[in-house]
């Protein structure tokens, strides 16, 4: 079981890096904002016209803003460690509470997209591999290559224009009805499925040329049984391992797709926090997205071990 511990330790380290990177960047962001921080906070507390030098000095003394920068940075990071993320500068709500509200829709969208792409991509990849060099394979791989070259926002616009505005069969944006899930999920899943179909195709081709497949054929198994019993699991190992690389695409795609379709999730909030320079919200949402990324990566680690015993014993 040492392997599992090792993998977990790596992911914990990654989570630590995420928290440090986001925390330190946001601290410097707060420092870099124009104006005196003490005056700004005093203005927010007592109203713009009630601020005097005395009030600002009181705030400065109370919050320790006159301490050296490294002490304030340590304080800032300690607050993150205590999951004290502060309040949004825009809505005045606790960042943590807002994140809890948004988390469900973001995780729902990510998992729906992953599931849809898993249903479409790998089966298509296996299908292409079985017809390698023929017309369906050529068309399929060309389509996948084209899809990979389209940024997710362009795919989203195209789907939106065709299905929401031209055919008017689904809502263009929003979250209020079940059909609202169709466009954002499809947008994300298309990009993921394009890549996973190419990877599955390569993996299946490699397996089909291996000696155990030649043996299975020699012993007289039908083509369907050869693929089902001997090819699928072997081909699945690299495909699932590749999912780890795709997660970057998924997390980045969620941010873009949520903004495009006005999806009330963390990615949407993150983009708004950047535009409004709402630092506590920015920090909270970036942390949540980063940690979600780590968590999904850990899940892929475990899936790899479950599928491929060679990883377990390595």
């Amino acid at each position, binding site marked *: 079981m040492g392997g599992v511990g090792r993998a977990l330790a790596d992911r914990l380290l990654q989570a630590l890096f995420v928290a440090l990177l986001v925390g330190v960047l946001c601290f410097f962001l707060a420092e870099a904002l124009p104006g005196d921080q003490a005056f700004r906070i005093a203005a927010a507390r007592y109203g713009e016209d009630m601020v005097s030098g005395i009030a600002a000095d009181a705030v400065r003394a109370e919050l320790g803003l006159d301490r050296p920068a490294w002490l304030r940075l340590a304080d800032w990071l300690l607050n993150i460690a205590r999951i004290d993320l502060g309040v949004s500068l825009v809505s005045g709500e606790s960042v943590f509470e807002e994140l809890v509200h948004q988390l469900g829709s973001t995780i729902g969208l990510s998992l729906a997209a992953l599931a849809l792409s898993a249903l479409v991509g790998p089966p298509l990849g296996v299908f292409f591999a079985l017809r390698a060099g023929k017309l369906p394979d050529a068309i399929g791989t060309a389509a996948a290559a084209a899809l990979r070259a389209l940024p997710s926002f362009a795919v989203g616009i195209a789907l939106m224009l065709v299905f929401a505005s031209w055919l008017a069969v689904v809502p263009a944006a929003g979250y209020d009805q079940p059909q609202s899930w169709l466009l954002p999920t499809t947008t994300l899943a298309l990009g993921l499925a394009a890549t996973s179909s190419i990877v599955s195709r390569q993996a299946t081709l490699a397996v089909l040329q291996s000696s155990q497949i030649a043996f299975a054929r020699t012993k007289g198994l039908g083509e369907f049984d050869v693929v089902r019993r001997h090819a699928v699991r072997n081909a699945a190992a690299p495909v699932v391992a590749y999912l780890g690389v795709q997660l970057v695409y998924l997390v*980045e795609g969620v941010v*873009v797709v949520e903004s495009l379709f006005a999806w009330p999730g963390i990615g949407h909030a993150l983009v708004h926090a950047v535009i409004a320079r709402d630092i506590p919200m920015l920090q909270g949402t970036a942390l949540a997205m*980063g940690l979600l990324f780590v968590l999904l990566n850990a899940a892929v680690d475990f899936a790899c071990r479950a599928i491929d015993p060679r990883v377990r014993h390595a």
Partner: protein
Amino acid sequence: MSSRFVRRAIGAACVGAVVLLAILGPWLIEADPLRQNLRAALRPPFGDDLLGTDHLGRSVLARLAHAARLSVSFGAASAASAALLGTGLGLVAALRGGIVDRVAGALCDATMALPGLLLVLILAAFAPGAFWPLYLGIALALWVEFFRLVRTVARSRLMAPEVEAARLFGFGDLHIVKRHLLPHLLPALGALFAFGFGASVAAVSTLSFIGVGLRPPTPEWGNMMTELLPYYDEAPIQLLAPAGLLFATVLGLQLLAGRDTK
């Protein structure tokens, strides 16, 4: 092998056309990409302006050409910076080993902990609408790929007998890098560069589209699509043109890079 040649040829044609537009376009097209003329708003293509005008009466062709110049130079600059940083650090880590290797490896792990877009978004908050956070963020996100490739390949090459022989002859690191490492690395580095180039062109358009990258009135493909999206019905060509150029650029670069790089 011929299909591989066809892919490369298509890729080179796409990239060549966009680069040509980026270099020559702003020269040849006289129209000012920022000049508005509200009386000539949303004119259809093939009139006075080859690709028509946008909702503020600006020449779409001129805006496309200036946007191409921006995207191409931005992509080349950030991919080149990432390649230099990643290759340099990778070579030093492989040659020196020990603590240098560990520190560089930790830097690499720290960068990879966060998806690149999140890093760029946080940096973008420092100076909304400015050029440097995007450049810095994208280059920082991309250098890791170069570093990992160079370190792995260089490590195994350094064990090779010809490198040992060169060392015994008293040749220094510089000679070994030039004669024994770089020739092995260049093809893969070229592919990574093309991929990074495409990724940064796509990233800057994506960020501008969602409103955290470059801001209007800067002519940029993603910006143009945001601005023209409400007019998809009256001006479909004007909306499709920037999307098509973006697609051609990224597809061309990916085809040039060859598959299986990422």
